[in-house]
């Protein structure tokens, strides 16, 4: 679906903080809304995950939160230097994807003012992405082709659930191509997954796991599933 700009103030990301909200300036020509809308919708971050969520760490994850907070506070340099982070844990639902999105959104928040409607970050749910690549062999999807071409150049990519399934040769070759190219171009990545270094090698193979693990800052969550916890 080609991007279309639609202003809906009730969906603005800055409602809790914006001094202009509900003022006469809160209208379709709000440049921050325009740019953030462009960045968010083109990133592929699911709409229901685009809004801020308060994350409270379990005691055991405080250090991981501190590390991620440091990355978030310096996200411009993190991306500029082409750095990557691998957020992983044995458990599900303890905030890995939420943190990944949070980092990307903070990057959007830092760059929107001189963005000029450029796609700067993409959220990829890896299992879905690999399935779509296979589907694309027999059926061309223009939007998906656009997304694939952007993957090679966009500043930041979230590879969500990177080793959720064991990769076949075809999947492996595809994923390796994109991640390799991004590393060569010194572009930033955020990976999320449930595998440790050794398991990652088994699932992704040596070359790909080396890209993901060795070239990233690993951040491990050990806390339990916190979905539904307020």
């Amino acid at each position: 679906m080609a991007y279309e700009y639609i202003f809906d103030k009730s969906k603005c990301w800055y409602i809790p903080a914006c001094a202009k909200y509900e003022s006469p300036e809160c209208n379709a020509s709000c440049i921050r809304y325009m740019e953030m809308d462009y960045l968010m919708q083109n990133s592929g971050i699911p709409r229901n995950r685009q809004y801020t969520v308060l994350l409270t760490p379990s005691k055991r994850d405080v250090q991981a939160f501190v590390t991620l907070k440091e990355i978030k506070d310096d996200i411009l340099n993190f991306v500029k230097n082409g750095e990557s982070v691998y957020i992983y844990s044995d458990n599900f639902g303890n905030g890995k994807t939420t943190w990944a999105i949070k980092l990307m959104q903070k990057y959007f928040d830092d760059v929107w003012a001189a963005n000029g409607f450029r796609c700067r970050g993409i959220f990829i749910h890896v299992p879905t992405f690999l399935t779509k690549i296979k589907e694309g062999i027999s059926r061309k999807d223009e939007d998906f082709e656009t997304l694939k071409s952007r993957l090679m150049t966009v500043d930041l990519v979230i590879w969500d659930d990177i080793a959720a399934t064991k990769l076949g040769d075809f999947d492996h070759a595809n994923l390796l191509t994109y991640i390799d190219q991004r590393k060569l171009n010194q572009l930033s990545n955020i990976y999320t997954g449930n595998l440790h270094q050794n398991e990652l090698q088994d699932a992704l193979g040596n070359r790909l796991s080396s890209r993901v693990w060795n070239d990233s800052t690993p951040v491990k969550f050990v806390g339990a599933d916190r979905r539904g916890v307020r």
Partner: protein
Amino acid sequence: MITLQILNKVIQTQDMQLITKNALTEEYFVGYESEFNFILEHFNKYGKVPDKATFLDNFNEFSFIDVAETDKYLLDTLYEEHLYYKSVEVVQKVAELLKTNANDAVEYLHSQLPNLEIAATSEGTDIISQADERYQVYKDKMNADNPWYISTGFEELDGIVNGWAKGEELVVFFARTGQGKSWILAKTLAHAWEIGNRVGYISPEMSPTKIGYRFDTLFKNFSNRNLVWGKEEPDYEGYIKDLKAQKIPFIVATPLDFQKKVTITKLKHFCQTNKLDILGIDGITYLTDERYKKGDNKTISLTNISEDLTSLSIELGIPILVVVQSNRSGVKGADSDGTPELETIRDSDGIAQNATKIIALRQTGAGLEFGIKKHRDGINGGKLIYYWDIDRGQFNYIPSDEDAVKPERRQKKADEIKNSFNDGTDIF
């Protein structure tokens, strides 16, 4: 006689320059075409003009005469004679047409006039000895009461192209259909009017009333939808009263005003009659090629038209702005960053060649992207993005890391925008 004199002089002096330097062709040597071609072919083959004996061998009845006249005299007389032959043909045809329709006759005459230009020995311009003249032009530009360039109405675009030059300026706006070309033309013309220029707008597709509503929207930000749909628009009546008191005209003409045939000759008359300072044409393809010859395709016609528009701009000393549609290959996908490229201008390599500035337009995100594809006096390839409220006719510059605005100016604008949101707390 003059052709005989020239051929004799060439053989006599054994110097071919009189022919080669002045690009004379057999067309000029009526009755002596074979002799002319023989000399030319001999020269091309053997690198010298044939001598008297060789020539006589081939043309034994040729009259050899002594020629003492200067080259200038010979050429001026040749040109005059040549013009005579060409004029007779045109005048006869005009006389024929006059019997049935004076409009057709005059139109034909106008179309042929460029071919009947009075030629003279062409000596070019010595830019060394003429240096004073251009220094004077430069000083005039610096000190003119009215600026030599007309501002475009887009501050950041002015920073890149320096406005529209008053003369020798053919500006092309091109895009796929529905991207806002006509609006941009109207916007820049409305701005030119606002700063005191007499404006002409050729509108092949829309009535003067509709262009008028666009003007009102662009000038004072009235809702275009309300004006077109006839809905309540506060203060419009008072605005109209004030507007009527303005003395500078903004003249909209449709093909009906040109008897459905918009030619360069008629446009020239239109500009001169209305003493225009700037002319906009909303669709180059609606113009009629006065130099059209049987068998000419659309590309040739558009090349002729764009050449004639450039000449018109030079002659009248005004910028001419035209709108051109790009072809289907000009459609960019969602991710193919950038405006359409020059090769997508429909049927019109010649337009790109003759234009002094070419600006491609494309809707992107919530903005309108300007791509500067050609800039004869500056750098090609820059881009600019504006947020465009189409209903209110407002354009706001949107800074982009990749645009062509000076980095310090862009950064200043980006900081201004960012600082205007004083949130006080982090959201993400």
